[in-house]
Structures are given as structure tokens and as C-alpha cells.
């Protein structure tokens, strides 16, 4: 019933959006909406007569599905941290509903502002809206601190979509991951709202209440307090951040990044279904661990505490798990060739650790590492293709 009614509604209103209709300029929106509900009725015209059942919508939906556990956990955690410092109820529903109040506006702003740009460009360029934005629109708010003002989120997603993607020609032609581009823009344009110890937790102010600032610091920020002879692991444990807690993710941080456990679950889902490249993810993990161990080996008496950190801590702290699972594997901004995907992932891992260790002022390394390697992926592709074509017996 619903099926037929909805179908009819689309068929009846189509004329308003076609060539002579009043809402002609909104045709891409109409098509996108229709395609969201109904599968395409197009059939092949010529050989090959059959086509695979997969389409880009399903491909991108799988990334969204993989993100959902992390997303819901992020909502819960944002609420939990907020209630914790505000001295409110820590029950599941209290925390979750608080989290919804914090996170949902960000997601709505991200999707609505992003879609505005998508529709604008699609209307001007007269092409269809690509499903890639389904992912970008959800990824972007998940990389933000929960306290970020909505106008900054709107500005960030605008920058990500327009400068990160549309000026290059839209989905499939961008060099950089649009969600990360947006985040990097906010990071440098509004550092006060993106870094520091007070941005990671939404504080519901009650009168005459003081808030312990340190309890609002992220584990990565805490490590800056460690002296040369101190062990970061011990310091973190003193503050209550044991390895297990870092792994599960109940600690302050960007909305989606804290739970390495759920990021791994999402990554496994994407690797098994073939949507994300296992080469990039495993390459990244190997990169982090090998660099971590290498630094352990060169660590001396007087070197900074970061050198002797157990490399597995790098995997669970900060945004690495989130970045390597969902950002680095974006097929558009990653290399297309299979072998250099290992190099690409590996280099992201190495750079993440190096930035964390050698630039403590710059606590989060993974964002810069991914953006940096995004720039190198065309070169990596070029090298592998050249090598591969050299082996080929020419046919001209």
C-alpha cells in the first residue's frame, strides 16, 4: 500500500521538476529523494545486458552502517562525560538522551548545510547528487569536539564540501577527504574551540559549581604532562585511563573517535564486505606498531616520555582507530592500486606516531597524516602504474 502510494506521489509530482516545470532547478533533489526510496527502473540498452546488483548507494550505505555503532557510542559517551563533570545522573538513558541533545544538532547541521551545497552544485552542473555525501555528512560531526558551536560546524562542512570536493568537480574527483578537510579548516581557523582541555566535554552549568579541568582533558593531552622519566602508561593509569578504558572508549574526546573497539568492529565489517581496503587498514596498524617499537628501541634515559610508550597505546588513543578505519579508506582520496595501498596505510601509521611524538603541541597526528598522504596518493598510483605497464608486452 505504502509502496504504491509513495510511488504514485513521485510519479504525479515529477512533472513539476522536469524541463518546463516550476521547480526545474530542484530536479537533482527530486531524483535523489526518489532514488532513496526506490531502486532504479533503468535497464541496459546494449551489451553487456546484465549489471551487478550493487550501486554506489549500497556501497556508501555500508560505510554508514559500519559507522553506526561508533556513532551511537559517541552519543552515549558525549552525554556520559557531560553528566559526569556536571554531576548529573550517569544512568544509560540519562547519558544517552543528554548525548542526543549534544550530538544531534551537529549531525543535522552537517547534513543540511552539506546537502545545501551538494544540491546547489548539482543544480548548476546539472548532474545527480552523489551518495558520497551520506558518509561525509556523518563522518564530519563525529570528528568534532562535542562543544563546537553549530555555526562553526556549518562553516567546517561548507569548507569541506566546497573546497575539499566540489571545486575539484565533485565526488570521485577530490584529492582530499572532504570531512577531514572540513575538520582541518576548523582546527586551524578556530583552535580555541578545537584544542585545549575544555572543549571535549559539554558542561551543564549549575550555580556555584566548579569543574575539574583535568577531568576534561583527553588522554592525548594528558601525555603532555609527562616528564622525561615518567611512563605515560603509569600517568594515564593514575588518571584512570587504563588500556582497557582507552580501548572501550569511555573518555573525553571527539564524538566518534574514542572507542577503538567499535572502530575495529566497523573496520572488520568494511573489510569483510570489501567496501574498505584491508591493505590500508592493516598497513596503518603495522605502521603505528613498527614506528612505536622503533622509538622504544632508540629511547634513552633523557628522551621524552613519548619514546618509550607501548606502541599499542598509539592504536587506542586519540583518533587513529577512527581515522584509519573510516577516513583513510575513502576510495576516492586513497590510491587505487593494490600494492601502494600498503605503502599509503603504512605511511599514515608512521606519520601519526611521528607527529604525536615529535610535536607534542600537536596532539592529534592522524588527521594531518591522512591529509598529507591523500596528497601523495596520485603519486603512489603513478609509480605503481608505471612499473606495472613497463612489464606489459606492448600492443599498439
Amino acid at each position: 500500500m505504502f509502496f504504491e502510494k509513495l510511488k504514485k506521489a513521485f510519479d504525479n509530482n515529477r512533472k513539476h521538476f522536469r524541463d518546463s516545470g516550476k521547480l526545474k532547478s530542484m530536479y537533482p533533489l527530486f531524483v535523489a529523494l526518489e532514488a532513496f526510496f526506490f531502486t532504479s527502473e533503468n535497464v541496459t540498452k546494449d551489451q553487456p545486458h546484465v549489471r551487478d546488483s550493487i550501486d554506489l548507494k549500497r556501497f556508501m550505505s555500508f560505510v554508514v552502517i559500519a559507522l553506526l555503532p561508533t556513532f551511537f557510542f559517541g552519543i552515549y559517551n558525549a552525554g556520559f562525560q557531560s553528566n559526569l563533570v556536571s554531576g548529573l545522573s550517569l544512568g544509560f538513558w540519562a547519558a544517552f538522551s543528554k548525548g542526543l541533545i549534544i550530538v544531534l544538532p551537529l549531525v543535522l547541521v552537517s547534513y543540511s548545510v552539506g546537502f545545501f551545497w551538494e544540491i546547489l552544485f548539482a543544480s548548476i552542473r546539472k548532474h545527480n547528487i552523489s551518495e558520497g555525501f551520506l558518509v561525509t555528512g556523518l563522518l564530519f560531526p563525529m570528528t568534532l569536539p562535542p562543544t563546537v558551536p553549530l555555526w562553526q560546524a556549518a562553516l567546517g562542512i561548507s569548507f569541506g564540501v566546497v573546497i575539499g570536493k566540489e571545486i575539484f568537480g565533485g565526488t570521485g574527483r577530490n584529492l582530499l577527504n572532504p570531512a577531514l578537510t572540513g575538520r582541518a579548516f576548523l582546527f586551524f581557523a578556530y583552535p580555541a574551540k578545537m584544542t585545549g582541555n575544555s572543549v571535549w566535554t559539554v558542561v551543564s552549568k549549575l550555580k556555584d559549581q566548579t569543574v575539574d579541568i583535568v577531568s576534561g582533558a583527553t588522554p592525548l593531552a594528558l601525555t603532555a604532562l609527562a616528564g622525561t622519566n615518567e611512563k605515560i602508561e603509569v600517568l594515564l593509569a593514575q588518571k584512570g585511563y587504563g588500556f582497557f578504558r582507552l580501548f572501550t572508549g569511555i573518555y573525553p574526546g571527539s564524538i566518534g573517535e574514542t572507542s577503538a573497539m567499535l572502530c575495529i568492529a566497523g573496520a572488520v565489517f568494511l573489510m569483510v564486505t570489501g567496501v574498505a581496503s584491508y591493505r590500508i587498514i592493516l598497513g596503518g596498524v603495522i605502521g603505528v606498531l613498527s614506528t612505536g617499537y622503533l622509538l622504544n628501541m632508540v629511547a634513552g634515559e633523557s628522551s621524552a616520555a613519548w619514546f618509550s610508550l607501548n606502541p599499542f597505546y598509539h592504536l587506542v588513543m586519540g583518533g587513529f582507530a577512527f581515522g584509519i578505519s573510516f577516513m583513510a579508506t575513502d576510495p576516492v582520496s586513497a590510491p587505487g592500486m593494490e600494492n601502494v595501498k600498503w605503502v599509503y596505510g603504512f605511511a599514515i601509521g608512521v606519520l601519526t606516531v611521528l607527529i604525536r611524538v615529535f610535536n607534542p603541541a600537536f596532539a592529534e597526528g592522524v588527521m594531518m597524516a591522512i591529509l598529507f598522504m591523500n596528497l601523495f596518493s596520485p603519486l603512489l598510483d603513478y609509480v605503481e602504474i608505471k612499473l606495472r605497464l613497463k612489464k606489459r608486452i606492448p600492443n599498439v
Partner: protein
Amino acid sequence: MLTKKYTDIRGYMLLLDIKKGFDINIEGSPLPELAKLKEPASVAFLPEIIPYVKPKLLVAQGDRVRIGSTLFIDKRNPDIKFLSPGCGKIEKITFGPRRVIKEIIIKLDSNEEYVGFDINKFSENKKFNREDIIQSMMNGGLWPFIRELPFRDIASPDFIPHALIVTIGNKEPFQPDPRVYLKEEIDLFEKGVFILKNLAKNLYIYASKDFINLDMKNKLVTHRYSGSYPADDPGVLMHHIRKDPSENRAWYINGQDVLLVGSFFSTGRYPVKRTVALAGSLANKRVHLKTRIGVPVNDLIEGRIADGNMARLIAGGIFRGYAASKESFLGLYETSVSVIPEGGKSELFGFLRAGYEKPSYSKTFLSYFNPFPLQADCGMHGEERACVNCGACAQVCPVDILPQFAFKSIVAADIEEALSHGMLDCVECGLCSYVCTSKIDLCGFLKKAKQEYYKDKA
């Protein structure tokens, strides 16, 4: 990856383990049964679908022709003749846009007469002169069955290729089973092979590793393949065994056409026998039919398919065939009719369904675990989008082209770059278009660029 793996079995045969390609899990393969089709009332020749040919008509509507009378010649080489597959009156010649000759329809007499060809030179069992064979094959209308890689045009007779490949395979859904069309015809096949051996430096016979014919001489098959569609393609064979660019211009002939060659050199008549497979999920009798060249499609499907309105009739396989109608005829090269659903029904929230019965190369549907053959239809299952570099096309390409990069250089009109990617090695199997997540017709880009390059060169 340029994976090359040979296993030399008993010293005379090479087994190629083709790693790439894809077998779509599709319902509707023809049963290995052979039935005889009643004589059609008319047959036709379809010049339009023979690639590159520039036909010059030698007959007109109302003319009487015999089996083996010349219908038209190729203006590019007037020695290449196309002969009438029937005896009777030319009922109609239909033209398409720009005077393209679509069909030459011949209403058959009840008693058909043949044009006789002189084959006395070939009566003894000795080594024959190459020129004589080519001359006879051209006069006998058999030359168009030999085609040349990489452009798949009719072979140019003044070139001596490194190899002539006889392909005995049915990897594409749906093609006639060689065990069926070769059954009891091995004498003709061996006769054909005996003649064809003289045309090239080497004669390769390329069959599946499971192909067994007890009557066939043991050593006849030279190369065997294991792997998915299109492992049986001559272009795939040459891609894996060539050692030098000079081997690129290999010739090939379909196994069933070798029977025609054998028949011609045994009887001196233009042979018209064909074994056609009728298959696909909407065919309720999936059989092999013994019939003739140019048979009307309607004769093949009448009473054998479920619902004609919902079906797409494909002359040839589902990847390379052309869309036919009830009123059309089978072309010179086509040996099957595949009948599959037209599809295109819309589905609510189709992109989120589990899809236990949706065939796919990707692992995003539960059909990955479905062992039963599935019904594939002609729906696009999505709209065209920009390439997101997912790389599925490169994973299936049987000749190691990187379609996602090659097609971009074609779009950017950088043909040199596309050539270095191996554009001419493309076997036009259609798999890259099939698997494409963004529904880009990659194979169409490659095919068109190849054709244009060839026309520029000529």
C-alpha cells in the same frame, strides 16, 4: 598482476590457470541435449552486425539465389564474399539509418539447390598450398569466420600470423556446449583443423580443462584453461602466452565454425548447419537446437519460452550478444539465444535489502552465500555516478587492464596513454561494466576507442 602459470601435462599440453574474470552465478544453462528444429520458412543475412565490413550488395529484392550465391562483398577487400545461407527468392532487404543494410531476407524453396565449389585440389591427404586454401575459403564464403586480434575484424589474408586459435569454450552465459556440437562431428572437425593448420605458423586448439571428447585425437587440444569467464577467449590466451609484440595479431576461429570449414572441404558446398543453444531463466526448454545459419529468432523460441513480454531476447551471450526481437534473425557469428527477464522493477529501499537472491560480484549481498543459480535481469540496479576508484573492474579484468585508469585517459582523449594501458588487449568481455559500482560502461569506452583507433589507422 601479470600472473602466468603453466603446467605442462604429459609434454604436449599447456594448462593456463586464469586467475581473473568472473562467473556470474546465473540460472538457465542449456541442457546438453540436442533437438532438431523444423526447417524455417525463411532465413536472413545480417550485414549490419559484422564489425567494420563495408558491404557492396550484389543482389536485389526479388532475385533468386542458391545456397552459396554471393549476396555482397566487402568493399575494403572485394575477394571477401558473403554467401547466401538459403536457396529461394530474396523477399526483402531492410535498411537502417544512413542506408546501413540490416537484413537480407531469403524466402526458402522447398527443394534447395547449392552452388558447387571446386575442391579437387584438396582431395588428397597432403600438405596444401596456403594460397589455394585462402582462395577457396574466400570463394566459399568461409573467410569471414577467421578473425584477427586485436580488433576482431575479418582476418587480412596477406598476413601470416604467429598463431591461429581454435576456441572450444562456452564460458559466457549462454553458449552452446562444445560436447554437444562436436558430438558425432569429430571427423569434420579434424578435417577442418587439417586444413586450417596451413594458414598460420602455429595452430592452437584452446579448450577447457574439463573438455573431453573420446573420439578426438589426443594431441589435438594444445592449450587448456581453468578459470572464470572469459578464460576461453583467444585474447586471454594470447595475453598469457605471448612473448613478443608480433604475436598480438593472432587469428582465431570458433570451434563450431571449424566444422563448417571441414564440411566445405569435404562436400564442396557452402555449409549452413548450426547448433544453437536456447537458454536463460525465462526459457522453459533449455536445449541445443540443430538448425541453420540465419534462422529466425521466433522459430527458436516458439513454445520454448515462458513469457515473451517480460523477456529480453539476446542473440548471443548475456555479455556480448545483441538485443534481438521475435522478428529478427541470428547473425553469422551468433550461436545462441539467451532469454532473461527485462527487469527494471522498482523496489522500496532496495539498497538496504539483504539480497540473498541478487547476483553480485561484490560481497555486499547475502547472495554471496547462496549456492543456487540466481535469476539475473537486465536492470541497471542503480544510476550512473562518478568513478570512486573502488577498483572492482581491475580485479576482474582478464587481461590485466586497469579499466578505471584506462577509461579516464580515453575520456581525456589521451590515446597514447590508453594504448600503454593495454587498450588493444581488451577482449570486450563486458565484465568491467558489469561489476562497476558507479554503473559506468567502461567496456563501452574501451571498445569504442579501439574501433576508432582502428578506423584511423586504416
